[in-house]
């Protein structure tokens, strides 16, 4: 009986992770400009990947197998690298003055401060 319970919890986290990764991708497709689109991918790596990793850790730690904590490392490396790429893309876009849809003036103002 507990096995079914554990599998239910694992499925829950898999679905949760998948749903957030999907929402992140939808964001990438729907949002209007480069800066808002940055929000999708950097977020999909947090809760989306997080949910899948929790499921993975649970799956490999239960059912007679040894405790598996590899997933912590995946989280750690993702958390360390995802913001760096987002930062680089944002910085390059600012440098090239990529259009920021709704309030251009704000971008120009911040660009002038450089």
């Amino acid at each position, binding site marked *: 009986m507990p096995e079914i319970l554990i599998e239910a919890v694992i499925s829950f986290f898999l679905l949760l992770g998948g749903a957030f990764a999907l929402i992140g991708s939808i964001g990438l497709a729907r949002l209007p400009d480069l*800066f808002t689109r940055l929000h999708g991918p*950097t*977020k999909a790596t947090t809760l989306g990947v997080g949910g899948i990793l929790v499921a993975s850790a649970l799956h490999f730690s239960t059912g007679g197998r040894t405790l598996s904590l590899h997933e912590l490392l995946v989280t750690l490396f993702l958390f360390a690298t995802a913001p760096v790429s987002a*930062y680089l893309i944002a910085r390059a876009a*600012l440098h090239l003055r990529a259009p920021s849809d709704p309030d251009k003036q*704000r971008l120009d103002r911040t660009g002038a*401060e450089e």
Partner: protein
Amino acid sequence: MNRLVPQPMFSLFLWLVWLLLVNALDPGHVVLGAFLALALPLFTARFWPDQPCMGRPLILLAYLGVFLWDIVVANLTVARLILGPVGRLRPAFVTIPLDLKNDFAITVLAHSISLTPGTVSAMVSEDRLSLLVHVLDLDDEALLVQRIKKRYEAPLKEIFPC
């Protein structure tokens, strides 16, 4: 002590990463990991010109807790924003004045801002005095700046006091 173990926290971190990488706790790996954790900081010391000093490591745990909770809460908010009417979003750039001085502490703050949904850090000014942040849906600029300063920067200041 200080010459042999220049960065105790870094060593501890490396040791934990090693043990997680091999995913086992047998004595051989514990010793090998400890050896690497002591040796690597010594050999890479010259790449760390400006070492952060750890003031109160325990606050780091509390900080992580707040941070993880914020990720969950804010993810839900952003999911709602993305699936809702996109035209109603109010994206904007916000400049956050920095009180942190240490490069590493600023990096941690910028990472935290990027990982909590709704905000992405875009640029640290050359003089390290301000951080440009892009906000997906800005409600109240002053409130956001105050929130980030209080929730993230204040504990980081205590963790890395110099």
